[in-house]
């Protein structure tokens, strides 16, 4: 169970972006989160992935509240989350080849031995050819890079997947293919999914449950007016 309880988070304590948001994802469940641009979805996703320390509120993973964020979170906690970031260009180290990017989590967690087996397998799953694997991020298209990022998110077999607008820069066919990859993985592993996006049609088709951003605020997570979000000019 991944529970986000009354989270308040942002980049300036006086003016948080995410105010009092609650959301729960059960294991094996897939939840789509819809919201207008700039409302704080990515921020929330980063909090949920233990990458951003909230100002208030709690993240509870499998009944255990989280105390440390980023490096302070125990490694197995961190790696329980597979994250696909919204902007693949920025979230890939420009010095590494795609293959290295995918293999990096394995190496970082001391499972380098698995690299020769896992990386080609995942590359095949997400549709990256051997030629692309040897290139660096600036030599591939955004979509190709996002495939690598998905492979990176899956490589440690996370129990929770957080996909922040994973398909925003993908064409319909690739979108369908990658969604299929995620679903296949979930079916096999029983992982929970939090998919953030704008595309209602897509998320409704993909996820078991979709929630609107404005439904999340308030302690109950059901009702309550959303804080004035920036998109509302």
């Amino acid at each position, binding site marked *: 169970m991944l529970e986000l309880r009354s989270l308040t988070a942002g980049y300036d304590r006086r003016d948080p972006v995410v105010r009092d948001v609650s959301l729960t994802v059960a294991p094996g469940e897939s939840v789509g989160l819809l919201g207008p641009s700039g409302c704080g979805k990515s921020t929330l996703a980063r909090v949920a992935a233990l990458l951003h320390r909230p100002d208030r509120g709690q993240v509870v993973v499998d009944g255990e509240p989280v105390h440390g964020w980023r490096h302070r979170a125990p490694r197995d906690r961190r790696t329980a989350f597979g994250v696909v970031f919204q902007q693949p260009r920025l979230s890939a180290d420009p010095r590494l080849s795609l293959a290295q990017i995918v293999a990096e989590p394995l190496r970082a967690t001391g499972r380098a031995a698995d690299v020769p087996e896992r990386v080609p397998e995942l590359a095949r799953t997400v549709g990256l*050819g051997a030629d692309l694997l040897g290139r660096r991020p600036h030599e591939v298209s955004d979509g190709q890079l996002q495939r690598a990022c998905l492979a990176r998110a899956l490589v440690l077999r996370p129990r929770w997947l957080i996909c922040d607008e994973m398909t925003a820069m993908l064409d319909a066919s690739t979108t369908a293919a990658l969604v299929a990859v995620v679903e296949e993985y979930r079916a096999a592993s029983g992982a929970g999914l939090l998919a953030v996006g704008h595309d209602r049609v897509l998320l409704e088709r993909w996820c078991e449950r979709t929630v609107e951003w404005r439904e999340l605020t308030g302690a109950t997570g059901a009702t309550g007016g959303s804080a004035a979000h920036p998109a509302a000019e």
Partner: protein
Amino acid sequence: MTGPVPPAGAPAPALSVRGLSVRFRMHGGTHVAAVTDARFDLAAGECLALVGESGCGKSVLASALLGLLPENAETAGAALLGDGTDLLTADERTLARTVRGRRVGLVPQSPAAHLTPVRTVRSQLEETLRELAGVRRPDLRKAAAAAAERASFPLGHLDRYPHELSGGLAQRAATALALIGDAPLLLADEPTTGLDRELVDRTVDELRRHVGDDRALLLITHDLAAAERIADRVAVMYASRVVEIAAADDFFGDAGPRHPYARGLLNALPEREFTPIPGMPPELSALPGGCAFAARCDRADAACGTVPALTGGVPLSTGAGGASTGAVPVSAGAGVACHHPVTAALEAPRA
């Protein structure tokens, strides 16, 4: 929804691409063919949507038109602006002084990466206004606000640095910047990623409005709904080649696309079948000899061992037909590069 179609025999098109090819030199002497022999015309007042599978070369095509290719690239062919300037061979000085921003605008893909990280959105907007629109200092603030407004960029975020923007905000900032120059040709590379549906509509409508009667828009997008909303024609790219050009009404309408790949692409939409086209796109560094789609195509046969040319066949719409461009009869209006194109009535996709 379709914009006005340029009458046949009208003055030279805003952009005329002839045999444009781009390839990248890689280690060990291999090449990646990112764009191969692209040819199409883009008339003033027209909006051409360029769609295609990720990695098929759309962004590279746009970069080539702006002379912004990386240094390991090589080009061939020509891309002529209305006045005959060849974008591919123009020297850097011309490109920098008279073309980029002024005659060809660009909304880059990955806008967040294309903004200078150490300056606020406002300063970058004001600077562009000063240089391209000649706005004087006292009017800058207002002009910047107006420019932001056009792209639905919230004014309260103008003084933020790019890394403080959400994905959608950065996208809007980039759009605002690209609209400033009032260029007769606008290249929008995925201008709607990260935007919610309402904003997508607002943004593409603004783009369409911007294009009006005398400008042209090349809209590169994965968002077929957005393309459907504003495009006059649709070009489909597959594995570095333009494989089909069709009028938007036909493409999205009952007739549907004629290239099997394009049909597959439409079918993959979540509102349709949501199934990917089987197989994987070929690697651009080792393209097969014949039709690149043959391996994934259920219609493929021996004929597909040769590369099909983009042919008009029967004109499908009122689009600027091949007749008007004489020597290269099929490149401009509509056409499909397939040995076995689908005939419209037969297999029109149904959502």
